[in-house]
Protein backbone atom coordinates (compact mmCIF):
# COMPACT_ATOMS: atom_id res chain seq x y z
CA UNK A 1 0.00 0.00 0.00
CA UNK A 2 1.21 3.51 -0.85
CA UNK A 3 0.85 6.42 1.52
CA UNK A 4 0.63 10.19 1.23
CA UNK A 5 2.62 12.63 3.38
CA UNK A 6 0.36 15.64 3.66
CA UNK A 7 2.82 18.10 5.20
CA UNK A 8 6.51 18.14 4.36
CA UNK A 9 8.45 21.10 5.69
CA UNK A 10 11.81 20.51 4.02
CA UNK A 11 13.18 19.02 0.81
CA UNK A 12 16.39 17.55 2.25
CA UNK A 13 17.64 14.41 0.53
CA UNK A 14 17.63 12.19 3.64
CA UNK A 15 13.98 13.13 4.31
CA UNK A 16 12.94 12.29 0.75
CA UNK A 17 14.98 9.07 0.94
CA UNK A 18 13.23 8.02 4.13
CA UNK A 19 9.83 8.84 2.67
CA UNK A 20 10.34 6.72 -0.43
CA UNK A 21 11.77 3.92 1.74
CA UNK A 22 8.62 3.98 3.89
CA UNK A 23 6.30 3.47 0.89
CA UNK A 24 5.17 7.06 0.50
CA UNK A 25 4.23 7.98 -3.05
CA UNK A 26 3.13 11.59 -2.77
CA UNK A 27 4.40 14.39 -0.54
CA UNK A 28 2.70 17.76 -0.21
CA UNK A 29 5.51 20.23 0.36
CA UNK A 30 5.38 23.61 2.03
CA UNK A 31 7.26 26.26 0.13
CA UNK A 32 7.55 24.89 -3.45
CA UNK A 33 5.68 26.56 -6.29
CA UNK A 34 4.94 23.82 -8.78
CA UNK A 35 4.54 20.07 -9.12
CA UNK A 36 7.81 18.15 -9.36
CA UNK A 37 9.31 14.70 -8.85
CA UNK A 38 12.20 13.49 -6.70
CA UNK A 39 13.24 10.11 -5.27
CA UNK A 40 10.18 8.34 -6.78
CA UNK A 41 7.98 10.86 -5.01
CA UNK A 42 5.46 13.25 -6.49
CA UNK A 43 5.92 16.63 -4.82
CA UNK A 44 2.88 18.90 -4.70
CA UNK A 45 2.98 22.55 -3.54
CA UNK A 46 1.18 23.55 -0.38
CA UNK A 47 0.50 26.81 1.40
CA UNK A 48 -0.41 27.13 5.08
CA UNK A 49 -1.64 30.38 6.57
CA UNK A 50 -3.39 31.53 9.72
CA UNK A 51 -5.41 34.16 7.86
CA UNK A 52 -7.98 33.10 5.28
CA UNK A 53 -7.43 36.29 3.22
CA UNK A 54 -3.85 35.18 2.49
CA UNK A 55 -5.12 31.87 1.13
CA UNK A 56 -7.52 33.67 -1.20
CA UNK A 57 -4.68 35.18 -3.25
CA UNK A 58 -2.59 31.97 -3.37
CA UNK A 59 -2.15 30.19 -6.75
CA UNK A 60 -4.76 27.64 -7.76
CA UNK A 61 -2.35 24.71 -8.08
CA UNK A 62 -1.45 24.84 -4.38
CA UNK A 63 -3.07 22.87 -1.59
CA UNK A 64 -4.44 25.60 0.69
CA UNK A 65 -4.49 24.84 4.39
CA UNK A 66 -5.78 27.13 7.12
CA UNK A 67 -4.14 26.90 10.54
CA UNK A 68 -6.85 26.91 13.19
CA UNK A 69 -6.18 28.06 16.75
CA UNK A 70 -9.63 28.64 18.21
CA UNK A 71 -13.35 28.26 17.57
CA UNK A 72 -13.49 31.74 16.01
CA UNK A 73 -11.41 30.58 13.02
CA UNK A 74 -14.23 28.24 11.95
CA UNK A 75 -16.98 30.83 12.36
CA UNK A 76 -17.82 30.94 8.67
CA UNK A 77 -17.57 27.35 7.37
CA UNK A 78 -19.18 28.12 3.96
CA UNK A 79 -16.46 30.64 3.10
CA UNK A 80 -13.81 28.35 4.57
CA UNK A 81 -14.99 25.47 2.38
CA UNK A 82 -14.82 27.72 -0.70
CA UNK A 83 -11.26 28.93 -0.10
CA UNK A 84 -9.32 26.33 1.91
CA UNK A 85 -8.90 22.67 0.98
CA UNK A 86 -8.29 21.57 4.55
CA UNK A 87 -7.70 22.95 8.02
CA UNK A 88 -4.74 22.20 10.26
CA UNK A 89 -5.18 22.03 14.02
CA UNK A 90 -2.67 23.59 16.38
CA UNK A 91 -2.11 22.44 19.95
CA UNK A 92 -4.36 25.27 21.19
CA UNK A 93 -7.17 24.06 18.94
CA UNK A 94 -6.76 20.51 20.27
CA UNK A 95 -7.29 21.92 23.75
CA UNK A 96 -10.18 24.26 23.03
CA UNK A 97 -12.17 23.20 19.96
CA UNK A 98 -15.81 22.84 20.97
CA UNK A 99 -18.48 20.37 19.92
CA UNK A 100 -20.34 22.87 17.76
CA UNK A 101 -17.22 23.82 15.82
CA UNK A 102 -16.50 20.15 15.13
CA UNK A 103 -20.12 19.75 14.05
CA UNK A 104 -19.60 22.54 11.53
CA UNK A 105 -16.56 20.73 10.16
CA UNK A 106 -18.36 17.51 9.36
CA UNK A 107 -21.54 19.22 8.22
CA UNK A 108 -19.59 21.20 5.64
CA UNK A 109 -17.28 18.29 4.79
CA UNK A 110 -14.01 20.05 5.63
CA UNK A 111 -11.03 17.68 6.08
CA UNK A 112 -9.02 18.22 9.24
CA UNK A 113 -5.25 17.82 9.39
CA UNK A 114 -3.92 16.52 12.69
CA UNK A 115 -0.15 17.10 12.91
CA UNK A 116 1.76 14.82 15.27
CA UNK A 117 3.80 17.76 16.58
CA UNK A 118 0.76 19.68 17.78
CA UNK A 119 -0.63 16.48 19.29
CA UNK A 120 2.56 15.94 21.29
CA UNK A 121 2.67 19.60 22.32
CA UNK A 122 -0.93 19.42 23.49
CA UNK A 123 -0.22 16.21 25.40
CA UNK A 124 2.72 17.85 27.18
CA UNK A 125 0.37 20.43 28.71
CA UNK A 126 -1.26 17.53 30.67
CA UNK A 127 -4.69 19.11 30.34
CA UNK A 128 -7.99 17.68 29.14
CA UNK A 129 -7.84 17.77 25.32
CA UNK A 130 -11.43 18.74 24.67
CA UNK A 131 -10.88 19.42 20.98
CA UNK A 132 -9.13 16.10 20.37
CA UNK A 133 -11.85 14.16 22.17
CA UNK A 134 -14.56 15.91 20.13
CA UNK A 135 -12.71 15.19 16.90
CA UNK A 136 -12.20 11.49 17.69
CA UNK A 137 -15.90 11.18 18.54
CA UNK A 138 -16.81 12.86 15.25
CA UNK A 139 -14.47 10.56 13.30
CA UNK A 140 -16.04 7.45 14.76
CA UNK A 141 -19.69 8.54 14.75
CA UNK A 142 -20.12 11.09 11.99
CA UNK A 143 -17.34 10.21 9.56
CA UNK A 144 -15.37 13.42 9.95
CA UNK A 145 -12.38 13.09 7.63
CA UNK A 146 -8.99 13.58 9.24
CA UNK A 147 -5.48 13.57 7.81
CA UNK A 148 -2.71 12.41 10.10
CA UNK A 149 0.80 13.59 9.41
CA UNK A 150 4.16 13.86 11.13
CA UNK A 151 5.06 17.20 9.43
CA UNK A 152 8.76 16.27 9.15
CA UNK A 153 11.40 18.98 8.91
CA UNK A 154 14.31 16.71 9.96
CA UNK A 155 15.11 13.12 8.89
CA UNK A 156 14.34 11.74 12.37
CA UNK A 157 10.86 13.23 12.21
CA UNK A 158 9.86 11.03 9.27
CA UNK A 159 7.70 8.45 11.01
CA UNK A 160 6.89 5.08 9.47
CA UNK A 161 3.17 4.86 8.47
CA UNK A 162 2.75 1.72 10.58
CA UNK A 163 3.77 3.76 13.62
CA UNK A 164 1.38 6.57 12.68
CA UNK A 165 -1.45 4.03 12.36
CA UNK A 166 -0.58 2.60 15.76
CA UNK A 167 -0.68 6.10 17.30
CA UNK A 168 -4.17 6.56 15.84
CA UNK A 169 -5.16 3.17 17.24
CA UNK A 170 -3.99 4.26 20.67
CA UNK A 171 -6.12 7.39 20.34
CA UNK A 172 -9.14 5.18 19.75
CA UNK A 173 -9.37 5.32 15.96
CA UNK A 174 -9.07 1.72 14.82
CA UNK A 175 -9.42 -0.39 11.68
CA UNK A 176 -10.14 1.35 8.40
CA UNK A 177 -10.64 4.64 10.24
CA UNK A 178 -6.93 4.52 11.13
CA UNK A 179 -5.85 3.75 7.57
CA UNK A 180 -7.90 6.42 5.83
CA UNK A 181 -6.06 9.46 7.29
CA UNK A 182 -2.86 8.33 5.55
CA UNK A 183 -4.27 7.19 2.23
CA UNK A 184 -7.76 8.03 1.02
CA UNK A 185 -8.48 11.36 2.70
CA UNK A 186 -5.31 13.15 1.49
CA UNK A 187 -5.99 11.71 -1.95
CA UNK A 188 -9.50 13.16 -1.88
CA UNK A 189 -8.10 16.57 -0.95
CA UNK A 190 -5.63 16.36 -3.85
CA UNK A 191 -8.48 15.52 -6.21
CA UNK A 192 -10.40 18.55 -4.96
CA UNK A 193 -7.36 20.69 -5.89
CA UNK A 194 -7.21 19.11 -9.32
CA UNK A 195 -4.47 16.48 -9.05
CA UNK A 196 -5.65 13.07 -10.17
CA UNK A 197 -3.22 10.58 -8.69
CA UNK A 198 -3.64 6.82 -8.63
CA UNK A 199 -2.08 5.26 -5.55
Amino acid at each position, binding site marked *: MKFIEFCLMSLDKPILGNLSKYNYKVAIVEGIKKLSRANDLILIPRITRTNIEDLKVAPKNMVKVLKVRSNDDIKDPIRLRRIAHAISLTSEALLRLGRKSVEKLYNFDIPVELPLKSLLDAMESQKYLKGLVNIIKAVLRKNLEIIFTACPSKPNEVIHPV*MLISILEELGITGTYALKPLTLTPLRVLRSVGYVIHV
Partner: protein
Amino acid sequence: MFTILLALIVASLAISVISLIYTASVRSKLRILLMSIKARTLKSYIKSLEERKKVRRRYLVFEFISEESIERHEFEELVKRYFKELFGSVELTKAGISVVILDKKICKGIIKFNSIYRSKILTALALLQIRNGIIIHPLRTTGTLKKALRYAKLVKK
Protein backbone atom coordinates in the same frame (compact mmCIF):
# COMPACT_ATOMS: atom_id res chain seq x y z
CA MET B 1 -83.09 -16.87 18.97
CA PHE B 2 -81.51 -15.39 15.85
CA THR B 3 -80.55 -12.18 17.66
CA ILE B 4 -78.92 -14.13 20.49
CA LEU B 5 -76.87 -16.13 17.95
CA LEU B 6 -75.83 -12.97 16.14
CA ALA B 7 -74.80 -11.32 19.38
CA LEU B 8 -72.73 -14.37 20.33
CA ILE B 9 -70.96 -14.38 16.94
CA VAL B 10 -70.20 -10.66 17.16
CA ALA B 11 -68.91 -11.05 20.71
CA SER B 12 -66.65 -13.97 19.76
CA LEU B 13 -65.31 -12.01 16.77
CA ALA B 14 -64.57 -8.99 18.95
CA ILE B 15 -62.79 -11.15 21.53
CA SER B 16 -60.67 -12.83 18.82
CA VAL B 17 -59.69 -9.47 17.29
CA ILE B 18 -58.76 -8.06 20.71
CA SER B 19 -56.74 -11.19 21.55
CA LEU B 20 -54.96 -11.00 18.17
CA ILE B 21 -53.99 -7.37 18.73
CA TYR B 22 -52.85 -8.14 22.27
CA THR B 23 -50.70 -11.12 21.22
CA ALA B 24 -49.13 -9.09 18.43
CA SER B 25 -48.12 -6.30 20.79
CA VAL B 26 -46.86 -8.72 23.45
CA ARG B 27 -44.98 -10.66 20.78
CA SER B 28 -43.14 -7.58 19.54
CA LYS B 29 -42.24 -6.64 23.13
CA LEU B 30 -41.07 -10.19 23.76
CA ARG B 31 -38.96 -10.15 20.60
CA ILE B 32 -37.28 -6.90 21.65
CA LEU B 33 -36.61 -8.34 25.11
CA LEU B 34 -35.14 -11.53 23.65
CA MET B 35 -32.97 -9.56 21.23
CA SER B 36 -31.60 -7.37 24.01
CA ILE B 37 -30.85 -10.45 26.10
CA LYS B 38 -29.12 -12.00 23.11
CA ALA B 39 -27.05 -8.85 22.48
CA ARG B 40 -26.10 -8.65 26.14
CA THR B 41 -25.16 -12.30 26.37
CA LEU B 42 -23.26 -12.07 23.12
CA LYS B 43 -21.35 -9.04 24.38
CA SER B 44 -20.49 -10.70 27.67
CA TYR B 45 -19.50 -13.88 25.83
CA ILE B 46 -17.16 -11.94 23.52
CA LYS B 47 -15.71 -10.11 26.51
CA SER B 48 -15.07 -13.34 28.38
CA LEU B 49 -13.48 -14.81 25.25
CA GLU B 50 -11.17 -11.81 24.97
CA GLU B 51 -10.22 -12.16 28.62
CA ARG B 52 -9.55 -15.85 28.16
CA LYS B 53 -7.40 -15.19 25.08
CA LYS B 54 -3.89 -16.41 25.60
CA VAL B 55 -1.33 -13.62 25.68
CA ARG B 56 1.35 -14.64 23.27
CA ARG B 57 4.86 -13.39 22.75
CA ARG B 58 5.69 -11.33 19.71
CA TYR B 59 9.00 -10.25 18.24
CA LEU B 60 9.34 -6.95 16.39
CA VAL B 61 12.19 -6.81 13.91
CA PHE B 62 13.35 -3.29 13.23
CA GLU B 63 16.07 -1.34 11.52
CA PHE B 64 17.64 1.65 13.22
CA ILE B 65 19.89 4.55 12.31
CA SER B 66 21.66 6.34 15.12
CA GLU B 67 24.39 8.96 14.96
CA GLU B 68 25.85 7.83 18.29
CA SER B 69 26.61 4.22 19.06
CA ILE B 70 24.03 2.70 21.37
CA GLU B 71 24.15 -0.42 23.53
CA ARG B 72 21.34 -2.96 23.89
CA HIS B 73 20.51 -2.12 27.53
CA GLU B 74 20.57 1.62 26.78
CA PHE B 75 18.08 1.14 23.97
CA GLU B 76 15.88 -1.02 26.18
CA GLU B 77 15.91 1.65 28.88
CA LEU B 78 14.92 4.30 26.34
CA VAL B 79 12.02 2.21 25.02
CA LYS B 80 10.81 1.51 28.56
CA ARG B 81 11.16 5.17 29.54
CA TYR B 82 8.99 6.40 26.68
CA PHE B 83 6.51 3.56 27.12
CA LYS B 84 6.19 4.49 30.80
CA GLU B 85 5.81 8.18 29.91
CA LEU B 86 2.94 7.38 27.57
CA PHE B 87 1.10 4.51 29.26
CA GLY B 88 2.34 4.32 32.87
CA SER B 89 4.19 1.73 34.92
CA VAL B 90 1.24 -0.70 35.22
CA GLU B 91 1.08 -1.16 31.46
CA LEU B 92 4.88 -1.37 31.32
CA THR B 93 4.93 -4.32 33.69
CA LYS B 94 2.20 -6.06 31.71
CA ALA B 95 3.81 -5.44 28.32
CA GLY B 96 6.95 -7.46 29.10
CA ILE B 97 9.27 -5.44 26.91
CA SER B 98 12.83 -6.58 26.35
CA VAL B 99 15.30 -5.90 23.59
CA VAL B 100 16.55 -9.36 22.61
CA ILE B 101 19.15 -8.36 20.05
CA LEU B 102 20.60 -5.07 18.88
CA ASP B 103 23.17 -5.58 16.15
CA LYS B 104 25.20 -2.42 15.53
CA LYS B 105 26.91 -3.86 12.44
CA ILE B 106 23.80 -4.37 10.37
CA CYS B 107 21.74 -1.79 12.33
CA LYS B 108 18.94 -4.19 13.18
CA GLY B 109 17.28 -5.25 16.37
CA ILE B 110 14.54 -7.41 17.86
CA ILE B 111 12.14 -6.41 20.64
CA LYS B 112 10.14 -9.00 22.55
CA PHE B 113 6.72 -8.06 23.97
CA ASN B 114 3.25 -9.39 24.74
CA SER B 115 1.05 -9.57 21.64
CA ILE B 116 -1.70 -7.13 22.69
CA TYR B 117 0.80 -4.33 23.26
CA ARG B 118 2.02 -4.07 19.67
CA SER B 119 0.48 -0.68 18.89
CA LYS B 120 1.63 0.70 22.25
CA ILE B 121 5.21 -0.39 21.59
CA LEU B 122 5.12 1.21 18.13
CA THR B 123 3.76 4.45 19.63
CA ALA B 124 6.57 4.47 22.19
CA LEU B 125 9.11 3.85 19.40
CA ALA B 126 7.68 6.79 17.43
CA LEU B 127 8.11 9.05 20.47
CA LEU B 128 11.66 7.74 20.93
CA GLN B 129 12.43 8.57 17.30
CA ILE B 130 11.16 12.13 17.63
CA ARG B 131 12.78 12.90 20.98
CA ASN B 132 16.11 11.02 20.70
CA GLY B 133 16.77 11.17 16.98
CA ILE B 134 17.16 7.40 16.54
CA ILE B 135 15.40 6.59 13.28
CA ILE B 136 13.43 3.36 13.64
CA HIS B 137 12.01 1.41 10.73
CA PRO B 138 9.77 -1.48 11.85
CA LEU B 139 10.26 -4.36 9.42
CA ARG B 140 8.15 -7.25 10.65
CA THR B 141 6.36 -8.71 13.66
CA THR B 142 6.77 -12.44 14.15
CA GLY B 143 5.63 -15.09 16.61
CA THR B 144 8.93 -16.88 17.11
CA LEU B 145 12.47 -15.73 17.70
CA LYS B 146 13.68 -18.10 14.98
CA LYS B 147 11.61 -16.33 12.34
CA ALA B 148 12.56 -12.92 13.72
CA LEU B 149 16.24 -13.79 13.38
CA ARG B 150 15.62 -14.93 9.81
CA TYR B 151 13.89 -11.64 8.93
CA ALA B 152 16.64 -9.65 10.59
CA LYS B 153 19.09 -11.72 8.49
CA LEU B 154 21.10 -12.50 11.58
CA VAL B 155 20.82 -16.21 10.80
CA LYS B 156 21.06 -17.87 7.38
CA LYS B 157 17.97 -19.67 6.07
